[in-house]
């Protein structure tokens, strides 16, 4: 390993000297390439299996290159699995959640960062702690609470809050507000007080200050946090598992668990289903990569 670790020092010294030439990092490259290949194997295997029709894998076995490669499995998985419906459910859950989270978190962050209270710190602490709890701790009481909350049958086919999107949206919102409040409050604290002071002296109301001054400046943080939240809530498995009982209302990430039971040992279809589920995240990653990474490191770079 010494050959690998000796290069960082050399390069970092060179980095700061004008006109230095970069040393070739053969060992590092080899190591990283090997690691990268290992890292890609599981996903690559799933992709490979998904592109082969079951008839071919039955004939030639899974570890062969015989037969054709096509997207038939994707089409079959989409239809048999009902993915169109599941993706719609995911959208119904994710978008309102993220919007509500950003709105509420920014409101709270604004109040905490601009105005002094007695309970500022206490509230912030409680909010952050709330986000770090394992969700299983809250499962039973939330289930019973939702079961006991009556709704007219026109709004909910269970007569209560169970099996409704609203339940999942509400809990997701509550769960993520803590983290976003914390991050946004740090961010807003960095915005100069003079901005709002000036507006205040001019007679602008609180809402004006919040809506008109602070929010536009928070846009980069919103982009970062928003991307992060979209991915996290899209990937969330537990809350829909708990609160939604109808198979047809499940979002895609929870539905993939059921599909295991539906596709059983048709690994090709299962792989195709997994790939279909991965595609939105990959799209978001490649398009909004910077935002996502910024969002992850937002909470880290403080103090």
């Amino acid at each position: 390993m010494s050959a690998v670790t000796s290069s960082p020092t050399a390069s970092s010294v060179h980095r700061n000297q004008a006109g230095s030439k970069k040393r070739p990092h053969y060992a590092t490259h080899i190591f990283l390439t090997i690691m990268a290949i290992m890292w890609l194997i599981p996903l690559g295997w799933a992709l490979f299996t998904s592109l082969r029709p079951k008839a071919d894998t039955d004939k030639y076995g899974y570890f062969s290159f015989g037969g054709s490669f096509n997207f038939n499995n994707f089409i079959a998985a989409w239809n048999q699995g009902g993915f169109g419906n599941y993706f719609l459910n995911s959208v119904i859950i994710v978008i309102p959640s993220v919007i509500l989270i950003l709105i509420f978190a920014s409101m709270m962050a604004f109040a905490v960062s601009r105005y002094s209270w007695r309970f500022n710190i206490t509230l912030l602490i409680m909010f952050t702690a709330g986000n770090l709890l394992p969700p299983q701790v809250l499962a039973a009481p939330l289930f019973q609470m939702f079961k006991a909350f009556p709704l007219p049958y026109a709004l909910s086919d269970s007569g209560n809050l169970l099996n409704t999107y609203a339940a999942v949206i509400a809990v997701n919102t509550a769960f993520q507000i803590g983290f976003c409040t914390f991050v946004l409050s740090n961010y807003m604290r960095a915005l100069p007080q003079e901005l709002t002071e000036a507006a205040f002296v001019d007679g602008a109301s609180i809402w004006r200050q919040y809506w008109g001054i602070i929010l536009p400046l928070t846009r980069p943080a919103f982009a970062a946090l928003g991307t992060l939240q979209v991915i996290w809530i899209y990937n969330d498995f537990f809350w829909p598992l708990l609160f939604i009982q109808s198979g047809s209302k499940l979002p895609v990430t929870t539905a993939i668990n059921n599909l295991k039971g539906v596709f059983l040992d048709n690994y090709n279809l299962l792989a195709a289903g997994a790939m279909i589920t991965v595609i939105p995240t990959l799209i978001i990653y490649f398009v909004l990569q910077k935002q996502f990474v910024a969002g992850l490191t937002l909470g880290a770079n403080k103090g």
Partner: protein
Amino acid sequence: MTELIGTTTTAAAGITPRGRRRFSMLTRRDRVVLTLMVAVPTLIQLIFIWIPTLLSVYLSFVKWNGLGLDSIKPAGLDNYIYVFRDYPPFWPALQHNVLWLVFLALIATPIGLLLAILLDQQLRGSRVYQSVFFVPVMLSLVLIGVIWQLFYSQNNGLLNFLLGTSGTPQAVDWFGDPNINIWAALIAATWRHAGYVMILYLAGLKGVDPSLREAASLDGANAVQTFFRVIFPVMRPINIVVVVITVIESLRAFDIVYVINRGTNGLELISALVIQNLVGEGQVIGVGSALAVVLLVISLVPIIIYLSRTFKKEA
């Protein structure tokens, strides 16, 4: 929208040393708005997080079959005694949780750190490498479970094929054999965790002052010494975050074992046991809540440490 940029405010009364305005200086209307802005999110947190947490604690001391509030019977410490003494999966689950934490801390996190260090140099293709290692972080743990299931399958999975045992009686059932499936699951979790740690450390390393490294190398320190004595301590905030994330992730590990076999037969985890007793067909709310409280208490330790560290300076 008027912005009087450059207008410096007078040091009017009502501005705290931190530059924040006192609440009492605001108009009534503003006070209402501000109160609402704080009250609504707080109410949401209260209803959906803090009160249920307290209810979980309460439910752990009762016997309840889930129907109607009048069938709740007090049970004292019975549920806890049952969990600690009579419930066979509990101690294995605790062991597995500890194992999960240790594995993530000693193997997954250092791998992430190593990758970050290596990629922090201006390598060609650094972006590509980063993307490769980072993709698993974007995937949900359920999806990771499904993908690795295709890899680990006893007779149709790539691993046994590469080992040459596919289709033979020696083929290991990676997810089915209770002696090794926890390790198989841990490797899948590492696949994701390392990338997460890598990104955090990459951000942290970027923020390290290069002159520190220069000074260290001029003082004659080699790479290892430079890293551990100079760079690593400077990244303290990141280190704290990574530690907390590792601990929290290991306590939360639920999705992946649930999708493999619902957290049974070698993959018991406290979070899975909670769900088995609360949501599965064998519903025993009191026992499930007792397990949830155990999980809560264990989780509070890193949470409190993290919060006290982070908020120390604010108070």
